[in-house]
């Protein structure tokens, strides 16, 4: 006991001496072993950010369910548009997702939008006024990077994806460039995982090819709902934009096609097919899917190649909105019916 006390005294004296040398209080030195695991835990937490960051819930229940809860937040997500003229819808969908992300944070970090000169010329340059009005993304939280070549755009996106100072990176490319292969997408995906930030890869007019992205969505435009007034929906007006999203690839492996609706005021998504009660006619879509023959004969002057080729097809197309389809009756503008 006495020996113990003496020993402890010596230890205390030594500890005090070390504390003096180190310039801290001796109490701080008390558990030198404890700081190790603590730092470890910090480290685990840091790299674990990627996993624990979880999912980006869009709010459209059935869509989320099909994706097993939502889009992965710290990952590369591919958004495909069939044609370059769909670029508005594809970009709109990506920005809506980015907007959902920004809504959750108190201090919005900027979104970096990387594109090649070609795509910005072909599909239009992002317009900050529209983004502010439709998605609440302030001009201060927008950064554009315009690169002359695909290689440069990929490099910028890769550098940006590793930054935690950005809230999302949008990389927009056209077609199937050779440089955007499995390796390049894998690098993007890894960076996104490390930083815990999403990277949206917008691919306009591109064919699906194997990439490292866990989720691939094919985005197409869908008719907007009419504006809602006190007296009910107003025919012929363009209200909330519709976005038809097809799951091309996901971890949950549930294929599905969803028509989402973006509410620019609330800044939320709606699942139109199921939340159809909101001034929406479910029968409208069903009918369009069923009869794909032109309701009104084509005008004699204009020949639409898409419509002309339709009878040749052996099987009716399952797409709800075939390219050459005529608008169903309630969608036609009021002034034409008059």
């Amino acid at each position: 006991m006495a020996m113990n006390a003496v020993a402890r005294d010596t230890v205390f004296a030594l500890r005090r001496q070390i504390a003096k040398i180190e310039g801290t209080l001796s109490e701080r030195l008390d558990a030198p072993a404890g700081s190790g695991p603590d730092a470890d835990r910090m480290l685990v937490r840091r790299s674990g950010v990627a996993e624990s960051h979880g999912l980006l819930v869009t709010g459209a229940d059935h869509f989320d369910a099909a994706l097993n809860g939502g889009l992965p937040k710290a990952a590369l997500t591919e958004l495909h548009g069939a044609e370059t003229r769909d670029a508005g819808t594809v970009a709109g969908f990506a920005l809506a997702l980015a907007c959902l992300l920004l809504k959750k944070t108190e201090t919005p970090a900027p979104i970096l939008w990387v594109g090649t000169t070609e795509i910005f010329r072909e599909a239009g340059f992002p317009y900050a006024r529209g983004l502010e009005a439709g998605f609440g993304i302030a001009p201060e939280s927008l950064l554009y990077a315009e690169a002359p070549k695909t290689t440069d755009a990929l490099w910028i996106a890769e550098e940006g994806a590793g930054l935690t100072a950005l809230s999302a990176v949008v990389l927009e490319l056209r077609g199937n460039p050779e440089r955007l292969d499995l390796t390049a997408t894998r690098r993007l995906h890894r960076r996104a995982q490390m930083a815990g930030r999403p990277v949206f890869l917008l691919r306009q007019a591109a064919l699906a090819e194997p990439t490292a992205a866990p989720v691939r969505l094919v985005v197409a435009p869908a008719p907007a709902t009419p504006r809602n007034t006190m007296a009910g929906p107003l025919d012929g007006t363009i209200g909330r934009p519709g976005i038809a999203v097809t799951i091309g690839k996901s971890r949950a492996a549930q294929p599905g096609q969803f028509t989402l609706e973006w509410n620019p005021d609330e800044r939320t998504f709606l699942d139109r097919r199921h939340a159809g009660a909101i001034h929406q006619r479910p029968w409208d879509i069903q009918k369009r899917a069923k009869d794909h023959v032109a309701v009104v004969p084509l005008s004699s002057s204009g020949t639409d190649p898409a419509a002309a080729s339709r009878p040749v097809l052996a099987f009716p197309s399952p797409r709800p909105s075939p390219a050459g389809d005529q608008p169903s009756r309630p969608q036609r503008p009021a002034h034409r019916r008059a």
Partner: protein
Amino acid sequence: MINHRDRNAQRIAALDERAEALRLKPGMGIADARAMHPSIDIVEADPLADLRLLDSLADWCDRYTPLVALDGIDGLFLDITGCTHLFGGEHAMLDEILARFFHQGFDVRAGIASTAGAAWAAARFRDRCIVELGEEEALLAPLPLAALRLEPEIRSSLESVGLRTVGAVLAAPRAPLVRRFGVALLLRIDQALGRQDEAVSPRLPVAPLSVERHLAEPVILIDDIERLVFLLATALKTDLERRGEGARAVALLLFRVDGVVSRLVVGTSRSMREPRLILRLFQEKLTAIAEDFDAGYGFDLVRLAILATAPFDMHQADLADATEDGEEDLALFADRIRARLGEASVLKPVNVESHLPERAVAVIPYWQDAPQRISPPKKPAGPRGLPSAVPFQPERPIRLFQVPEPVEVPASEIPDGPPLQFRWRRALHRVAKVEGPERIAAEWWRQEEPTRDYFRIEDTDGRRYWLYRQGFYDASKPPPRWFMHGVFA
């Protein structure tokens, strides 16, 4: 031999030693020279190329002093005040400069004096001459009047009264000289003698800070250059710390052994002094120019100059030593892209007060501050940083075409109404729904731009477009044209 056209006659502008040996002179007619020696080789003068060459020589002379000024079309002023000791004194410096020029293949005459005027005269009339302070008069006195850098008219009128040397003019009383020949003459005399200051305006602004390293063995590898950049940046860091500043623009000057000077400039979005970061920017720059980077026989002088500085805002690290440096990361990211891909590679939008949609947003480089006049008054931010109480936000597309694209509209039901269908990029689009028109006219001071009527249009596939009709229907005018200006989500 080089000829030039002077008053409609081809004359000799310059000639080499062999032509001089043939007793040809500058100013002689080309026709006469040809008659004398039919075999001479004549080249057309190219003053711009001469100037470029002089410029590159001035670049090269940067290694001796940052204050290099061009003098006419064939001279350089080097302000070597305080630089001579670096090269072992005035004599050694003069010898070195002349030797190096000689090895590059130039015939150079040089002189050193305490005043620009005396140095000019010494270089042109007394080669390899160093004029000590106070000896200017002795130097100038026997020289012809051309040594005073006078206008030809003044010189000829002086000569017409018999004053043929500088000494004669110096001996003459000053007041009558001014009355007869103007102030310029005495100004030149005073400047040459050091009675009046003469400003030699350097070609490039002098960098506030610069460090350089002379290398005994020239370096060729990019890795070595990067290592040197790091060393030099480390040396600059202490100076920047003492001044409480950081760098906003840094230039790297590489002096090649054969006299070619490469100048790489990187800009930074925020003031920076960390050598590691400066090195990273130069790494990007060197990567970008890797293809046409020609080290030749190597670089024997590497200089790192800070062209612009700004106050450095210090951050105190918190106790856990984890500072929030997101902004800094972003700035560095933008700088690296800028260093590699050019000035306008990272952009940010700024709202501008304008009716015209394409003018309502200005896209400026990331590191620029928005000019005060184009930034609209700040709206008070509501919760979550979203602007609160926005009375009316017009619907605007999310993508705008940089140049509105012409659209063919075959028919619209009523003249001023929306189209029923339109052809854009050779595809026919049938209009399903229309909203509009929204009439947007340019500001009153832009009278020449016609009024536009914008329509939001949804086609049968559900794509939403922003079309406008430029101008109005009028029987006397050609029908207005339609344009596609943007797409909605």
